[in-house]
């Protein structure tokens, strides 16, 4: 089935098999392997991408359902040079070790802070409870997301930030 959507700001028109999840489609057809596939049934959150501003599990969405949408993956959150403020906070707070879950945490936190730049720690903990990490024990991740809030508060009204 022919679908037409935007991935990280680029228009894509391509044929997608109906049975293919958005996660597999992004990785195997579009070769954007930043999105990781963990459990493939909506439990671990590793495959989280942003669809029309909302963080969603790309293993629980068909590629054909992305037709007409704007999809942002971790590649789309990363500047051409260096790290985004959120990524920088992850680095400073040691919010990753093996890195497998990190793209899912980054996309989830980016979607949250874009909509709710003043989310309190409890809200952040509640939202991140949908992502599993086996390395960090979560506390550094929560700290990193809390620290990144100021970057979103400043840019909350800039058009750049609304594209994702």
């Amino acid at each position, binding site marked *: 089935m022919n679908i037409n959507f935007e991935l990280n700001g680029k228009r894509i028109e391509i044929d997608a098999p109906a*049975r293919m999840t958005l996660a597999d489609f992004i990785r195997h057809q579009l070769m954007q392997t930043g999105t990781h596939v963990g459990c*493939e049934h*909506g439990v671990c959150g590793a495959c989280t991408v942003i669809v029309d501003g909302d963080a*969603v*599990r790309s293993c629980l*969405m068909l590629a*054909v359902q992305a037709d007409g949408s704007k999809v942002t993956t971790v590649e789309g959150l990363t500047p051409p040079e260096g790290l985004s403020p959120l990524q920088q906070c992850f680095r400073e707070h040691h919010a990753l070790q093996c890195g497998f879950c990190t793209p899912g945490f980054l996309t989830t936190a980016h979607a*949250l802070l874009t909509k709710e730049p003043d989310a309190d720690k409890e809200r952040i903990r*509640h939202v991140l409870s*949908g992502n599993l990490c086996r390395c960090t024990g979560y506390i550094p991740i929560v700290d990193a997301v809390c620290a990144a809030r100021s970057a979103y508060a400043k840019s909350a009204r800039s058009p750049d930030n609304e594209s994702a």
Partner: protein
Amino acid sequence: MKLPNFEYVAPSTPAEVVRLLAANPEAKLIAGGQSLLPTMAFRLAQPAMLIDVRNLRGLDRIVIDSSGVSLGARTRWVDIETDAELATAQPLLVEAIRHVAHYQVRNRGTIGGSLAHADPASEMPCIAATCEANLRLLGPHGERHVNASNFFMGPLTTALADDEMILDVHLPAWAPGRKWAFSEFARRPGDFALAGVALFYDIDQEQRACNAHIGVVGACYYSKRMPAAEDALNGKRVDADTAAAVGAIASGEADPTDDFHASAAYRKALVGTLLERSLLTAANRPS
């Protein structure tokens, strides 16, 4: 874990959806897909065709008027969470759906999908049963209305025919001063609860509970109210003794089964404790 093969269609009118359902007995509707796609990944369901409702206009509409609240079948959990008026128009609904799954799932999952899936461990079927919601269904012969008390028939089993779709669900108007509470217990946030309770009641002129509605999550064969517990609550002033007595009756009335996650006895005990605490929460809530 990859999905089995199927044909995919995304029609633009409810009439076309119903026609496709009637012509393809092996077809299933998909909205958010947050329960259906994992079920397919595990090969517990292998529908020959998925009919996506994403192109149906107006199916995500929330209407609040004097008769109550009407929620289109494609209303997502996040739409309820972020609606400024629902928190006062249907506080029990809003509190209950805060417990549905995780952030990412709440951005896709829908009311209609949850009601049609009819998992007795899900919050929305419990709220529909507790609040005597009315479901508007469309089939090949037109619309019909089914009350939630007649809709849920067993685990994952409803009165929805194979060639019918849910259009919307209507919750009756919320009385001013109504007392209410929702509580559930899960080992991790976002998991299916081991048990939960939803309740509301009104207060009569002698400050006694009346019009009690008590529903159960997880510790039941299908989503339903607990009439014995309701009878025990009606006519009583809600204090610690009443709460304990009604909780004990509900504990006996719940009909869970043993499973991998918890024994039936544990779930029954949870229902009693959760209801006892919830009744006190409700009673202490400022009107």
